[in-house]
């Protein structure tokens, strides 16, 4: 029983980690305050759920989910290119509202508030991933792939060019960098991996509905990215573990879930405010939140 519980936590850590490092790419490295990141998570979840429910093999649905999310990330980058700071934040937030409204209302495809139940667990080349243990292995593989890619991007000269765009876009342009292209790729890749995380989430829980993709869900991810430190992938790993594990002890006090939920949100909200005030660089960050 305890094993099952830990495996569950590890799976959650894995999914949140992919979400967090993808946000780190667009926020920490590129300086894009993308508060609509959850929208890509949701798009990935719904796309993969619909495909899987139609019998499409898992590997194809996860790839398609990622690509479609990535496409929307790229799409979002175009009109928001000139926006900065809070206008960018609000516009991306607005984007997540629109996506949420579509999840809720496009009932023919998403079944609206009733959600999509019965999403099958992956079955790849005959190997069945129904058990949580095997699913964990799958998650670990995808975490490694995602981390590898994002790490390579961030530590390459491309990553430096992104950071330059973040620090001073005008100066980057005057060195000949095509910053729109840099930012578009950053958002697209960020959205792609968020979509991958969404697919894993959908396959794990086997049921999704719009309530998992409200704008509030960005808070724990944002918290992870800031606590870990902007532009620090290592810090993100540590912060993900902490944030996922932190509310867990409350479970053992015997509180009902109607109380647990709000308390968890209160704790996260307070932590976010405190960290913004006291340590906006987080543990390992070298960049201030601006």
């Amino acid at each position: 029983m305890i094993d099952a519980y830990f495996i569950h936590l590890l799976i959650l850590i894995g999914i949140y980690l992919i979400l967090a490092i993808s946000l780190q790419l667009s926020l920490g490295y590129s300086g894009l305050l993308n508060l609509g990141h959850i929208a890509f998570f949701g798009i990935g979840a719904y796309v993969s759920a619909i495909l899987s429910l139609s019998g499409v093999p898992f590997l194809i649905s996860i790839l398609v989910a990622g690509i479609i999310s990535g496409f929307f990330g790229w799409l979002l980058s175009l009109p928001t290119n000139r926006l900065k700071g809070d206008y960018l934040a609000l516009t991306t937030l607005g984007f997540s509202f629109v996506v949420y409204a579509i999840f809720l209302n496009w009932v023919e495809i998403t079944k609206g508030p009733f959600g999509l139940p019965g999403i099958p667990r992956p079955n790849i080349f005959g190997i069945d991933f129904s058990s949580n243990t095997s699913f964990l292995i799958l998650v670990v593989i995808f975490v490694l792939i995602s981390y590898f890619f994002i790490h390579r991007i961030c530590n390459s000269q491309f990553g430096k060019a992104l950071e330059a765009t973040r620090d001073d876009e005008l100066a980057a342009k005057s060195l000949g960098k095509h910053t729109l292209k840099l930012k578009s790729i950053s958002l697209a890749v960020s959205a792609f991996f968020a979509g991958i995380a969404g697919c894993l989430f959908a396959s794990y829980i086997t049921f999704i509905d719009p309530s998992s993709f409200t704008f509030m869900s960005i808070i724990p991810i944002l918290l992870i990215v800031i606590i870990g430190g902007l532009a620090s992938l290592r810090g993100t790993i540590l912060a993900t573990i902490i944030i996922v594990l932190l509310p867990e002890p409350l479970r053992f006090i015997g509180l009902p879930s109607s109380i647990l939920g709000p308390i968890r949100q209160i704790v996260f909200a307070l932590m976010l405010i405190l960290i913004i005030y006291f340590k906006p660089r987080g543990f390992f960050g070298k960049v201030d939140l601006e």
Partner: protein
Amino acid sequence: MTNVFLQLLINGIIAGAIYALVASGFSLIYSTNKFVHFAHGGIIALSAYFLFWLFSKLGLNFYLSALLTILFSSLLGYILNKIFYRPLRAKKSSSSVLLVASIAILILLESLVLLFFGADVKIINFIKNNQGIEFFGAIITPLQITIILVSVILFFALFVFMKKSKIGKAMRAVADNRDVAEIVGISSEKIYSWSFIIGSAIAGCAAILISLEQNITPTMGTNLMIKGFTGAIIGGITNVPGAILGSFLLGIVENFGIWFMPSGYKDAIAFILLFIFLLFRPQGILGIKNNQK
């Protein structure tokens, strides 16, 4: 014989009045403080529940409860500014940081509501007889008429206050150019406090009226905030009349919009308008373009 057009128009004006109540307090705070105080919605939600607690749980007289609610909301706004925004401002935090903080505060307030009151819908049973009145083929209830009247009076009072009163003029000075205002002796911190007190008081009024017309839910704050914010952006977030105008426009467009599409998409209309305006005309219909960063 129902006059659909008129009915939709009336529904639009009622919705617009509600959004304008939210947007006016919010844009008062925005124009003075120059950041998006998303938690404004949380103040509305908490005030609505406070009213419910006083009136439905403790059984206090309604009008007394309403008055106490308005005091509560202004106090809450004042406190939020003092403990959260003021220290961040002292650290020269950017408007993006303050925005993120305000979203965190909104979630904090809504979670507190969930914690103490639970997730089920609450109803304030004050209005006993609220039969719809026939009006040229459309129906409008006395409560709805009251809401429109009260909001118009409130907006007028706000307008007079901003134009004539000392604090109102000082607020406009700070909104216009904080540094110059400081030079002529206006304490901007004091004005920030006042903007939160007054803006949140309007939020309290909004909470009261909305609680009577619609039901009280834990997420009402977020929903209203998004609508009020959209209205403010459409009309022009930096000035209060613009925010009010934009809110009425939003209400009307929303209600006419669902003539053509399923009613579930009502919210989607607002979101899409918000998204489009932020992209292409962030200063709104009445606003003046200012440099972003």
